[in-house]
């Protein structure tokens, strides 16, 4: 970064500067610029005024004044992550069907939700989104440098929109039952692709796989506000 600009004329007290007007003229070297340009100050050639386009008068003026809402240019940012939650951290999920499970955090999605994975083989938690508020960040970190998570975003996890069916009564029940239950093979492959390097990283630390396979629970005598996670 460039160093801060030196002020040629510091303010001694509010309203009083150090160097006088004539001295400043000399300091800025305006005399040298003038001398280079033969006694006169160099001037840019005047720009041609842009041709004014005649705006056509509107044919229709509305009868009432409609109020326009104020413009809002705010762009929402993804939630600020707690310092304890960094990619590769083991998180403890607190709510939902996977409550108590210890899970690996992969990255934060643009919606602010956290992308996590069990890994699936270890504790049955698939690639999933989770809110930072329902999670405890532990201080245990896993090496996720070998994992490629660039293809996952919020759209990947959105509900699949089904094409509207024509109202045939008998077909209605059978067709519905068959389509909904299976997970597409593509998602299963994605899970395997993400988990493979993770599992290797887990093997390198003793007991880490068993740790992720176990659920967290409060036992007698554990005080959450005194526990170090």
């Amino acid at each position, binding site marked *: 970064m460039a160093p801060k600009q030196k002020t040629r004329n510091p303010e001694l007290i509010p309203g009083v500067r150090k160097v006088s007007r004539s001295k400043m003229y000399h300091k800025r070297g305006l005399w040298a610029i003038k001398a280079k340009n033969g006694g006169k100050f160099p001037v840019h050639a005047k720009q041609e005024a842009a041709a004014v386009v005649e705006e056509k008068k509107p044919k229709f003026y509305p009868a009432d004044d409609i109020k326009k809402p104020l413009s809002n240019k705010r762009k929402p940012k993804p939630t600020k992550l707690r310092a304890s939650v960094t990619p590769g951290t083991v998180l403890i999920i607190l709510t939902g069907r996977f409550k108590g499970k210890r899970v690996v955090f992969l990255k934060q999605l643009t919606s602010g939700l956290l992308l996590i994975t069990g890994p699936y083989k270890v504790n049955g938690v698939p690639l999933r989104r989770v809110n930072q508020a329902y999670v405890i960040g*532990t*201080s245990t970190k896993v090496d996720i440098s070998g994992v490629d998570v660039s293809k996952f975003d919020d759209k990947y996890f959105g509900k699949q929109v089904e094409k509207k069916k024509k109202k045939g009564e008998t077909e209605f029940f059978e067709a519905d039952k068959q389509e909904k239950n299976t997970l597409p093979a593509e998602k299963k492959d994605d899970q395997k692709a993400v988990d493979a390097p993770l599992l290797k990283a887990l093997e390198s630390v003793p007991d880490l796989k068993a740790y992720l396979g176990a659920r*967290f629970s409060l036992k007698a005598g554990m005080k959450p506000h005194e*526990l*170090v996670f």
Partner: protein
Amino acid sequence: MPFKRFVEIGRVALVNYGEDYGKLVVIVDVIDQNRALVDSPDMVRSQMNFKRLSLTDIKIDIKRVPKKKVLVAAMEAADVKGKWEKSSWGRKLIVQKRRASLNDFDRFKLMIAKIKKAGVVRQELAKLKKETAS
């Protein structure tokens, strides 16, 4: 049951209340019936109520209100830190601190280790029982 730990110059005490909780300090002078002047290598010499101090067995040899350098030298000579960490009270505090600082993963590993140890003990006990029974 006579008293064994006295408030005297050179008595090492543990602070049990306040900002300096958990520190070992040396009583360097007695101010009045309730307060003492205490000092320690890592704190400014200050007054403390006796109620904030728990006396220990350790005593060092100093004169009334020694200079900081003299105090530090006397503490080194008497090996206060070493004696404290070997004493059962000192060891207990170290264990408590270690347990409190355990990470969630550490607690899991500890649980596994306890289960393994209990398993081994139970196996040996079963063996011994079989021997005495037979």
